[in-house]
């Protein structure tokens, strides 16, 4: 059986400031190395989003002005997008994309920009820009799931972290029941105060990790691919993982992961 995943890049013409397309390149390439086909569709202002067409959504960061334009258009896609996530679709959102999926963004001068409320969280503009390498320890519940999807331990490198680069002035606060993606080890994360970074809602993830994130965090990349396959083709067995999602040689990726961490400590 030939496996195929449909990927949707949301607003690539407006939200593509920080090299985040590396995440899409990584997902597609890691699929291709396992003979899994992928399609990539770009959806932007004015385009129609159909229900359940996509297995993976990607939503990157942009400039404030672009974020305004996108914020307006996103309202028309709200029900389809939240419906897809309720049905288990995978979504990775970073920085500006992550903010627009929350309840609202209050800018420094008090203007409130509505989000679509997929994440029970909100962001408040601040005067300090949080710009640095960011290292987090993955949420333990998620880590257990990642360990099932990514079983390669031959690198002797701790695979319980994510590393990237943050560049934001908005401070994000999570609602009581929303799980963070991880705990900040080094850097600011969501708000620089409560040590949380990012958010998890079903298979939707938000975070401030540029870098690009997925190339040098291959365990998280493979986890997202696994979740997308599961949704499309049903519960995945261990044998399937071993055969279909066979481990790749990720030594270069893990070296990149390590060299980013080394720069911080």
């Amino acid at each position: 059986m030939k496996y195929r995943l449909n990927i949707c890049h949301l607003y690539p013409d407006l939200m593509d400031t920080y090299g985040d397309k590396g995440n899409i390149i990584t997902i597609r390439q890691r699929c291709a190395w396992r003979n899994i086909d992928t399609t990539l569709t770009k959806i932007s202002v004015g385009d129609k989003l159909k229900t359940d067409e996509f297995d993976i959504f990607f939503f990157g960061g942009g400039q404030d002005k672009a974020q305004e334009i996108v914020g307006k258009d996103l309202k028309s896609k709200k029900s389809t997008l939240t419906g897809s996530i309720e049905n288990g679709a995978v979504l990775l959102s970073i920085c500006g994309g992550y903010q627009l999926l929350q309840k609202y963004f209050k800018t420094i001068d008090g203007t409130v920009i509505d989000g679509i409320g997929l994440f029970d969280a909100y962001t408040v503009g601040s005067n300090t820009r949080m710009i640095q390498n960011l290292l987090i320890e993955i949420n333990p519940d998620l880590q257990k799931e990642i360990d099932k999807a990514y079983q390669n331990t031959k690198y002797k490198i701790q695979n319980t972290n994510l590393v990237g680069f943050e560049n934001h002035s908005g401070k994000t606060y999570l609602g009581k029941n929303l799980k963070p993606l991880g705990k900040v080890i080094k850097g600011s994360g969501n708000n620089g105060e409560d040590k949380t970074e990012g958010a998890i809602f079903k298979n939707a993830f938000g975070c401030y990790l540029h870098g690009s994130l997925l190339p040098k965090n291959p365990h998280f990349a493979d986890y997202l691919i696994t979740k997308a396959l599961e949704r499309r083709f049903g519960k995945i067995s261990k044998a399937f993982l071993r055969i279909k999602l066979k481990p790749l040689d990720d030594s270069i990726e893990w070296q990149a992961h390590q060299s980013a961490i080394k720069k911080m400590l």
Partner: protein
Amino acid sequence: MDIRLTSAILLGKITSLILKLSGSGATAAPGLFALKIDPNLIKKLSRKIKGGSVIISGTNGKTTTARLTFDILSSKYKIIHNRQGSNLLRGIASTLIQKAPVFGKIDFDLGLWEVDEATLSAAIENLSPKKIVLLNLFRDQLDRYGEVDTVRRNWQKSLSKLPKDTGLVLNTDDPGISFLAKSCKAKTIYFGVNDAQTNLPAIDHVADIKYCLNCNSKLIYKSLFSAHLGHYKCPNCGLGRPTPVIFAKNLNFKTNLTSSALLSIDHKVLTINYSLPGLYNVYNILAASAVSSNFDISPQIIKEKINGFSTAFGRFQKTEIDRKQIITMLIKNPAGANEVIRTLAQKDNLNLLIILNDNIADGRDVSWIWDTQWEVLKDKVKNITVAGIRSWDMATRLKYAKFKLSKNDIYKEISYSIADSIDKLNKNDTLIILPTYTALLEVQKSLSRLGGGKKWHEN
């Protein structure tokens, strides 16, 4: 006598002497110290330049444009220029101190200043320039500059205060640059490329502007040359590309990395044949020609100087070691790196060494390598090596662009990577080194140790 100014100059000169004796290439320190004593030093000294000052700024091409402009204007004027210096205020101050006697007499016709994007407003305030050249604005070191829109807003604010006898020289093909004329009284002239397309290999452009800065509608491009540079128009409010008085057409980029074009200056058309590659250098040439013709240099002289120009430090710089050619081309942001990649894609069997550092001057965020389309070079490369502090990130980028790379091709130490890459070359082969900014400084040191060329600050 202005005691504050005199002591500032004196301190600057002493610092400079000490640095020289210790063999250091640091060019900003004298200005940095002197400005602490007299913060108005630049204002006071630059006022004495007879014909006033010209400022050149933009994300890409500042150094090359400034050097070419210097070459052309020097045919008629005595120019003071921050050639070796940094392009921040301290670098401008250093240059002024170096050229001023202790009592602050300045004997120059014109000041020519390359200015960092984030320093433009302060430079305008200190130099009260006669002319300002703005080349382009692209995403670059977002960890330092913040958003491109923020930089542009700051520019807009300070340009709106210019008196109306200031001359603005703007790139008409960058909608984010031509837009700046709207909010200011200064006299504006435009330069641009009038061809409908170029003969360079295609690349996926990373544009920072896709929507009209005036009304947020999607811009329509009749021609798109590079990033967001091209022939654009807003279908909604009608904002479009102003007609340039200085333009180039019939661009021809040759595989030996030389170029030719027709250059039109005030209705006079000249054929230029010059030894610089790539589209980005066409814009540098246009900007330099526009300024020079405004200072009454004849088209004939401009043409001669363009044809005879050899490049600035690290920007297509050629060196020879053991009958092997080494070409160094600085890369520092997606727009610039994509143009370098496109230029190199004209050739086959490339021997490449890419060096990625993440120091403050490089940008600490290396995400930009994912906005750069290395894929275009995959089938054009014979040998490829990576080095630098973030060599593993670069290696990962190349792996996902499907280059074949072994661990032996990945170096941390820049000097080893250079020595080994040169070693591997056959006689008469060429090594192309693509370093980020702080890596470039190390490349220059390594090359001069191996016997190729001068130290960079003596250039």
